[in-house]
């Protein structure tokens, strides 16, 4: 077969203008991969009279020239076959196409690198572009999604829900929302979604860009925190119920015991045999101690939970009043240094703190008749720092943490008759007001200085709010409560008494009997 080529065509094939161009000469110039395509096109032309083919031609300098050929048969018989047509050098176009594809694929890569779902819809809500992440959701290749109406991908219902937001964006607004979607594996994923209008150079809005960031982790964390908060609120409620048990159910039999001891004393007034009188004294002492312990335990559980009223106070006067109220022993001097600021704060709580610290200083002083306690305040901007210094025996720094724990005393109970709760209560209150408390050696030589910071802004704690697990740290929440309905129809918590009660000879078993029911004592 002969092809008649004009000189320009010949130059495409890098043939001389006067060279003959039989089929095989041309075919030499065509790369192997494209020859079949070329030959097929010719066969098709023989049959249909129309020639259409795109193929490459080798360049002697290397590389290829892309040709697009269109033609038709002009003469055909058994021997000869003439096609007349046009060859167009589309190399440049092909190159651009290639670059475009490369750019697109680079863009796809870029977008796939975004940790989120990225898509672009045109004004007709058809997908032009979607990041590969969507493959996971729609189970299709990103390229397959192009041109599809978004409704076909997300369903009619979700489209109805989303449409207003798309429209808002198409109108020029940036829209933020949150959504969730179940993943193919069944889990629920949460997204923070932003829709933005996409404008061309003239400012006209062509479509809407959507970016969805996976916030599932954050959402799960939030849910987790909420669950923990609820748990803690419940545990706090349990704590309150425990305090209720302590106050009502433990107090009643305790009162009965105290009364009966009185009777025994009266009836046995003249009995001098053996240890009876001494034992009765000890019995009385221990029950009084138990009673005080109970009161302090209650005070501890209430510390930092009572919202109480916030009052405006002058610190100087306030401290002076407390010092007077305590009525220190003869000879003990309590001095307050002037110059403290005024505060609007939970005055009852502050009073408890000061009262405890000052009483402690007095109680632990080896020579109260010549003792010296000095209280000073320092303004520290957001808070005040209050110091209570005494000239007693001081506290070794190794007890720094111990003294603030529940039921801790530094001397044997019989010497100080303290429950060991005072500082634990103080710590709890100060934690509530987001302050700090610690002690140092008195720089004046003898004794200790207790210092604490008190927030100028009163800190409130609604009854169900978490108190930073302080209850747990102190060991109270180790009590597990089960609420049972008794015949009386009042909730009677059955407490498992924590280890703290195993101090000072309280046998845990004994106390579990008390926790059980007051019926034990009312039995005749």
């Amino acid at each position, binding site marked *: 077969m002969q092809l008649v080529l004009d000189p320009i065509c010949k130059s495409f094939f890098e043939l001389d203008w006067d060279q003959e161009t039989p089929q095989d000469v041309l075919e030499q110039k065509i790369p192997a991969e494209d020859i079949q395509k070329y030959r097929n096109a010719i066969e098709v032309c023989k049959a249909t009279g129309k020639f259409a083919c795109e193929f490459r031609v080798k360049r002697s300098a290397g590389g290829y020239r892309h040709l697009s050929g269109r033609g038709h048969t002009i003469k055909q018989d058994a021997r000869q076959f003439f096609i007349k047509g046009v060859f167009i050098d589309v190399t440049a176009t092909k190159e651009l196409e290639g670059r475009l594809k490369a750019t697109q694929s680079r863009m796809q890569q870029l977008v796939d690198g975004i940790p989120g779902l990225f898509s672009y819809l045109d004004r007709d809500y058809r997908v032009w572009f979607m990041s590969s992440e969507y493959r996971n959701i729609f189970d299709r290749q990103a390229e397959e999604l192009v041109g599809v109406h978004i409704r076909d991908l997300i369903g009619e219902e979700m489209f109805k829900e989303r449409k207003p937001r798309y429209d808002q964006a198409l109108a020029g607004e940036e829209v933020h929302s949150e959504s969730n979607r179940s993943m193919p594996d069944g889990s629920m994923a949460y997204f923070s979604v932003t829709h933005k209008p996409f404008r061309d150079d003239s400012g006209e809005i062509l479509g809407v860009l959507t970016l969805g960031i996976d916030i599932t982790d954050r959402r799960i964390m939030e849910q987790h925190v909420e669950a923990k908060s609820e748990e803690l609120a419940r545990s706090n409620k349990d704590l309150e119920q425990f305090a209720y048990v302590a106050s009502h159910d433990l107090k009643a039999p305790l009162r009965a015991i105290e009364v009966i001891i009185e009777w025994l004393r009266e009836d046995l007034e003249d009995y001098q045999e053996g240890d009876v009188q001494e034992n009765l004294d000890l019995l009385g002492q221990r029950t009084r101690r138990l009673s005080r312990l109970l009161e302090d335990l209650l005070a501890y559980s209430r510390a930092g939970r009572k919202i109480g009223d916030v009052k405006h106070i002058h610190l100087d006067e306030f401290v002076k009043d407390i010092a007077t109220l305590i009525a220190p022993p003869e000879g003990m001097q309590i001095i307050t240094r002037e110059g403290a600021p005024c505060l609007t704060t939970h005055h009852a709580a502050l009073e408890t703190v000061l009262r405890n610290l000052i009483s402690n200083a007095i109680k632990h002083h080896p020579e109260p008749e010549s003792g010296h306690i000095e209280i000073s305040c320092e303004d520290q901007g957001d808070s005040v720092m209050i110091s209570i210094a005494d000239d007693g025996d001081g506290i070794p720094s190794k007890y720094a943490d111990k003294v603030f724990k529940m039921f801790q005393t530094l001397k044997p109970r019989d010497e100080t008759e303290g429950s060991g709760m005072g500082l634990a209560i103080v710590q709890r209150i100060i934690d509530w007001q987001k302050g700090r408390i610690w002690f140092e050696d008195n720089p004046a030589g003898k004794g200790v200085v207790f210092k604490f910071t008190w927030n100028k802004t009163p800190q409130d704690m609604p009854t169900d709010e978490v108190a930073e697990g302080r209850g747990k740290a102190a060991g109270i929440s180790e009590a597990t409560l089960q609420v049972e309905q008794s015949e009386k129809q009042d909730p009677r918590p059955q407490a498992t008494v924590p280890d703290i009660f195993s101090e000072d000879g309280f046998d845990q078993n004994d106390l579990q009997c008390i926790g059980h029911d007051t019926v034990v004592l*009312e039995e005749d």
Partner: protein
Amino acid sequence: MSDSNVVPVKILLVEDDSIDVKAFQRAMTKLKISNPVTIARDGVEAWEYLSECADAGGEDAPSLVILDINMPRMNGLELLTKIRADKRLHHLIVFVLTTSNDEKDKFEAFNLHVAGYMLKSDMGNSFIRAVELIDSYWRVVEFPDPSFRPERDAAMA
């Protein structure tokens, strides 16, 4: 002080706490008071006892009731309401001796015509002053003879 009431009046103590019962009895012993005391453990027992006495003619019925408020099954105020509603018993002198400092309880008690309302805690558990009061009361105050029954006589007439 009149000594015409030589016969000590019968007292009904309605109290569920056995320690408080003991305390009351100790106080009576201390003050050398020997009135016969019947004890009911709650409102239901007390009502049964009082009904029996009334049915039997009322001559052996107590003249004075010392009433606790917080008791199981039927509390003091519920019992008092029944007493005041019953023609045979509504005349009973009742003193309330309770732990409740609740204004509602006090109001209700006086509404049901108690002769007095006393708090246990005011006296510790010795009840001395409560018993002294009750003792003075029955010694000074004139009680009608239990055998005096005008309606019964009128009915018989």
